[in-house]
């Protein structure tokens, strides 16, 4: 061995020293990796954050007492934290504020409102305040509200209706919100500072994320269920299927989110109703592209509906061609008109006649037929129209028009006739209802021609 290595023994020793040095260097590098990993693993280090002096005091105290610390963690991962928008920027109250609360030497509010967001997000708040979203709690006196508050009972309304529509936040004499009115992130919440709405309905505190607001599930928190199942309709539609299949291509966390530019895989609720396209800016007024109101008993065109329809068509045209878009909206309008003319208006007329004849109690929901009528338009009727509006075939048909027809013919008309015989004759004499009398082949053909002429299947 020695004869083989004799002349290199010195350099071998030297090499061993270098091996040792590099081994130390490598271990040091791995230790550095370990340190970086440890820092990365801390949730609060996931984002760079800055807190002003006052906010840092809030953080220190909350950390020390372990009160709502996860809100701090979430805030630390927010864009607000990156930009140095701390607790105080949103929670600080002034002496004259109704909702001021003396807290550890600071005047703060429990309920930051869009007015607090306005300081930095002026345009967004103004757009939002013009929207139906901001007015969602103005439903006092509506049938829904009587149902929730009176027929069902207040506690149900507090945790049901008002969690989506928004409560009127009430304060005790110290400025602390009282149970029943708060906690509440309903989108049309009436705030103590007089403003209406809450941005955190969609951009949940304390991450205030754009990504979350682009998620269909965020809208689905309220837009779901038997009376407005938009999220289920979306999931049933091709749009929803594409979203589910390719959600990783949606770039939901992108700073600038433009359909046709940032992403092309699928639209979400936000895409069609609010978000930017290659020709339109983002707008926080959710109704800016909605031409029909599908909420009431009889659907109506919205004010300035042509412009709104054009905006919606503009979104569609990011992916679809003109003929496709025009034909689709024609079919949608026909479906809404069919519901209005064939079921909603006749049913309303029948109810009016029953009222005039004194056959109904004055209190809403006091008669069985009022429940039938309510569900006819409020549940099934909306499902049919909303299914048509968002291309959900099963919601248009089986959850929608089928249920409308079934309850109209098999429940509503018999109940109305039982109360006032002959009350439905005028309605049933309409050509749309002639099938009930039995039809010859010739009459069936005439009926189909009638539908074709009235609702059309021609291309615009």
């Amino acid at each position, binding site marked *: 061995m020695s004869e083989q290595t004799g002349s290199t023994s010195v350099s071998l020793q030297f*090499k061993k020293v270098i*091996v040792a040095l590099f081994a130390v260097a490598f271990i040091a590098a791995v230790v550095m*990796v370990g340190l970086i990993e440890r820092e990365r693993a801390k949730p609060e280090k996931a984002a760079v954050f800055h807190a002003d002096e006052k906010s840092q005091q809030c953080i220190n105290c909350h950390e020390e007492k372990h009160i709502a610390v996860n809100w701090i963690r979430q805030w630390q991962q927010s864009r607000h934290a990156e930009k140095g928008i701390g607790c105080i920027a949103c929670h600080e109250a002034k002496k004259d504020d109704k909702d001021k609360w003396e807290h550890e030497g600071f005047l703060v509010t429990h309920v930051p409102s869009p007015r607090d967001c306005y300081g930095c997000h002026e345009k967004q708040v103004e757009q939002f305040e013009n929207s139906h979203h901001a007015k969602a709690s103005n439903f006092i006196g509506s049938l829904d509200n009587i149902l929730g508050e009176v027929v069902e009972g207040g506690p149900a309304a507090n945790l049901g209706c008002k969690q989506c529509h928004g409560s009127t936040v009430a304060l005790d004499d110290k400025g602390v919100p009282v149970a029943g009115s708060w906690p509440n992130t309903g989108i049309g919440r009436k705030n103590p500072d007089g403003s209406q709405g809450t941005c955190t309905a969609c951009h949940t505190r304390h991450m205030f994320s754009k990504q979350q607001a682009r998620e269909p599930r965020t809208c689905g928190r309220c837009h779901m269920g038997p009376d407005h199942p938009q999220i289920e309709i979306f999931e049933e539609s091709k749009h929803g299927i594409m979203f589910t299949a390719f959600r990783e291509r949606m770039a939901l966390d992108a700073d600038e989110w433009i359909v046709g530019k940032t992403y092309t895989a699928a639209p979400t609720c936000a895409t069609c109703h609010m978000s930017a396209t290659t020709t339109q800016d983002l707008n926080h007024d959710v109704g800016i592209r909605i031409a029909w109101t599908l909420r009431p008993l009889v659907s109506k065109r919205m004010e300035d509906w042509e412009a709104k329809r054009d905006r919606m068509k503009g979104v569609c045209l990011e992916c679809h061609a003109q003929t496709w878009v025009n034909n689709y909206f024609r079919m949608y309008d026909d479906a809404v008109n069919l519901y209005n003319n064939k079921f909603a208006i006749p049913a309303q007329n029948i109810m009016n006649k029953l009222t005039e004849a004194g056959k109904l109690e004055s209190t809403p929901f006091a008669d069985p037929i009022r429940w039938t009528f309510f569900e006819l338009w409020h549940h099934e009727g909306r499902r049919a129209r909303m299914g048509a509006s968002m291309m959900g075939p099963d919601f248009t048909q089986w959850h929608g028009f089928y249920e409308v027809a079934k309850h109209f013919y098999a429940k509503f008309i018999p109940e109305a006739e039982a109360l006032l015989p002959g009350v439905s004759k005028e309605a049933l004499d309409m050509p749309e209802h002639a099938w009930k009398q039995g039809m010859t082949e010739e009459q069936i053909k005439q009926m189909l021609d009638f539908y074709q002429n009235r609702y059309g299947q021609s291309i615009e």
Partner: protein
Amino acid sequence: MAERKRRIPGWLRFLRERVPVNVEVFEELSKEPVPNHMKNWWYCLGGTPLILLGIQILTGILLTFYYVPSPDAAHASVDKITRALPFGWWIRSLHHWGANLMVIAVTLHMIRVFFTGAYRKPRELNWMIGVGLLIVTLGFGFTGYALVYDQRSYWAATVGINIAEQAPLVGPWAARLLRGGATVNPTTLTRLFVFHIGALPTLMLILVAFHVFLMRIHGIMEIDAPPAVQETPLTVKEDRKGKRRFDPDRYFAFFPDHITTEMIVALFLLTFLTMLAIVFPAPLGAPANPDETPLHIKPEWYFFPIFRWLKLTPLPLFMGGMILAGFALVFWPFLEGAWRRRRPGSEAAMLVGAASVLTVLLFLIWEALS
């Protein structure tokens, strides 16, 4: 004798009985004489790719635990590895930079072999295997880069396969083999994945085994020795007792001398790769979007020279040039051998080599700056 047997631990006796190999043969193999010029760091470039291959295999296995080779999930799984998994960013960055260094190390090794004439008789076949290893390394780079499935990677793969399709005879067939269809489709990613973690590693290990085997039986070329010595494998020199012996003034032992050098290289590479991972973590762009072709599509830097050549020439000329260059590279030892038989002592190879290296470098820099 009986006393000696008692000293052998039980587990070793068990092992020796069940694996009855002559340990002395291994000892002998470990004493492979290594020419003194190998003490120079420049001559460690052959071992460097092997070390990097080890790192790539290890980190590659770890990445495969979490990588999902499906168009829907590939980018998300890489993102998860990079951002969510403990040490994932480090392992991925080691693999990323290891791949880059591998191409550099293989190229430098080839340049060294070329300019020292180490490919000459009787080592021509080993040069050809080496060219095969370069191609496999580039294949690893191409398929691995495609697996990331971000915009750059997706479109680089698409364009890369489209270029390959233009090759005469085998091009369309090779493109279909890679894509699993006439166009890039969900099967393509699976195929690239299978090439990356199955076919190419197998091919590479076989080629490396042959490469090392031929290197060992020929012995390492002595740079300063006359051709007669170079053409005589060192390992067959035996003394009267049949033991291999060599001149300690001219050679040193593979173990422990050279292996220590390789250990230094290995530790240096690990440290260097880790530092690269810390300072320049492996990037991850936006998810691949087959509907949106980026404005500027570029392959990985090691394909820049070919890409520039493609941009400079019409397609038939590009393909002709590539085929000619490939042919010259593979059969270079024989081409030069024939030339030297006509003009003994000619060093024209130096000129050809220098011109080739400079051209490749020029194209690389040109493309990088464009």
